[in-house]
């Protein structure tokens, strides 16, 4: 400590006399004290966030655990609190995530590959990139209204089916997938590409055999995070589905459906206050699904990052 501060003072002394006098003006103990205050402040900032999250989880667990059993996962919703389960919305959520992945991954990754590897840096392409970044910030309820007009009314003729929901979610998460994939592609060192070109590979071969395998972990974690956003969203689905009791798992892409966040929303508003506990149990299930998806994303990233790069 002393050694470092002396060195620093020497360096400052050589560059700027006035700074040196200012620092010397505050005594050693004051500086240590000031350092501690700032560290304490930063720790507080971290704790406020964590404490909030922890209090929320604890509250939900206390309310929800009494209702959380295997039957809760295998029953359909019911007017009787102790018989109510989440099978219908759980099935709906799986359909939405599955179809959204099916639509989002090819379109999102394709867009990213085009923008990074094939498109020239023209004004038009820069405008497209800027707009994709802007789309990521549009409130989700706007996508719900867009989906209602474009998919439900126009494409499916008033049928509020699970495909319309998934297409809306695709619009919502597509910008996130594109941006994450672009960043993953950009992180591939250009020397790899140069080496491949030097061996006579064409552009597509370079993308397929060099860039994509290298960028895959980054893309995957971006895609998983985007899909977990699709699971947690309720506003667009409220507009698209508008259903609150669905006592079946959708059987085909044109089935009616509901999703977990919407079911939670309904139970909180149920005339029987006992459903507040059921809603908390559903929140616990939703959190488990989300946290495990995020966990998989982190696992993929760590697994591939630890691999030696050179």
């Amino acid at each position, binding site marked *: 400590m002393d050694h470092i501060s002396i060195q620093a003072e020497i360096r400052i002394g050589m560059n700027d006399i006035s700074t040196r006098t200012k620092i010397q003006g505050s005594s050693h103990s004051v500086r240590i004290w000031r350092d501690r205050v700032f560290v304490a402040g930063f720790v507080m900032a971290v704790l406020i966030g964590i404490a909030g999250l922890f209090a929320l989880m604890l509250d939900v667990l206390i309310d929800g655990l009494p209702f959380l059993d295997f039957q809760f996962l295998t029953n*359909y919703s*019911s*007017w009787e609190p102790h018989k109510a389960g989440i099978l219908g919305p759980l*099935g709906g959520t*799986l*359909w939405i*995530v*599955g*179809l959204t*992945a*099916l639509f989002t*991954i090819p379109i999102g990754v394709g867009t990213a590959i085009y923008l990074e590897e094939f498109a020239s840096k023209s004004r038009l392409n820069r405008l497209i990139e800027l707009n994709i970044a802007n789309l990521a910030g549009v409130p989700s309820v706007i996508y719900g209204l867009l989906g209602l007009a474009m998919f439900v009314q126009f494409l499916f003729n*008033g049928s*509020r089916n699970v495909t319309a929901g998934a297409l809306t979610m695709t619009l919502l998460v597509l910008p996130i997938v594109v941006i994450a994939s672009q960043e993953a592609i950009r992180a591939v060192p250009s020397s790899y590409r140069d080496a491949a070109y030097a061996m006579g590979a064409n552009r597509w071969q370079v993308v397929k055999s060099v860039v994509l395998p290298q960028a895959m972990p980054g893309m*995957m974690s971006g*895609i998983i995070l985007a899909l977990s956003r699709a699971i947690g969203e309720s506003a667009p689905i409220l507009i698209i*589905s*508008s*259903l*609150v*009791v*669905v*006592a*079946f*798992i*959708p*059987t*085909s892409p044109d*089935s*009616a459906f*509901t999703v977990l966040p919407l079911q939670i929303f*309904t139970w*909180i*508003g*149920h*005339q*029987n*206050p006992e459903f507040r506990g059921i809603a908390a149990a559903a929140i616990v299930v939703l959190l488990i699904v989300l946290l495990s998806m995020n966990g998989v994303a982190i696992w993929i990233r760590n697994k591939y990052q630890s691999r030696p790069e050179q």
Partner: protein
Amino acid sequence: MAAVFLSILVITGCAGGASKEITIDGSSTVFPIAEIVAEEFRKEKPGVQIPIGISGTGGGFKRFVNGETDISGASRAMKDSEREEAVENGIEFTEFTIAYDGLSVVMHPTNDFATCLTVDELKKIWQPESELDNWSQVREGFPDKPLRLYGPDTDSGTFDYFTKAINGKEDSSRSDYTASSDDNVLVQGVSGDQASMGYFGFAYYTFNKDSLNILSVDDGSGCVTPSLETINDGSYKPLSRPMFIYVNNASLENEDTKNFITYFLKNAGELSELVGYVGLPEEDYLSQLNLIN
């Protein structure tokens, strides 16, 4: 990854046999009855899928007259404008009365002075030009305490019925009150505000009796408190109201829908009382059964 999701799709896709859905949407007041009847029906006919939405009476009718839903729950009768739209779209339908509701006016449980108000006093509070914001303005002798109002939003059939019964004209109401389409938000609002007054369907009062005080209403023939008896015999006036379901006649051609409506009429009386509403006299259900056979 995509393969995993595909297999999930295939698995969920295989579960359950394909069958046409019977879609219900409409009033959140009728919803509890639709929910319980659909659930009990499912026990007898497990293959039939009956998704239910709560877009409000008006919102439900907007979908119904477009042919998007098979059944629409309503806490008021269909308006002429909505009928015209149905005719334009070639939608024919049948109206069924399924139960009675007593529109309940409620206050914070600590409010011990306002136990009974006349229809005129309610009108004084809720009419469009009203600026009352203190209980002492409602009746002489009431304490000098602020008054804050809670009620359903304008898409709600409850709003339409209350404004007609109290203010004399449908949809005419003061607008400076806390409005929500979610009755539970109103329950939370009224039970959390000492100065509160609000109104909603009887079921929401039934399930929240401990946190609310209910108001008796005097229609000129004495104070009457809403209860299963006073709603059933019609003495709770003028806020007792019938609740309806509207069924698309084209959907009635479907055997499942017909069975469901038959089941609905045969069991609504008993089941609606489990969720806080009042059933019709038995013969009223039986006479309506003739409409579909």
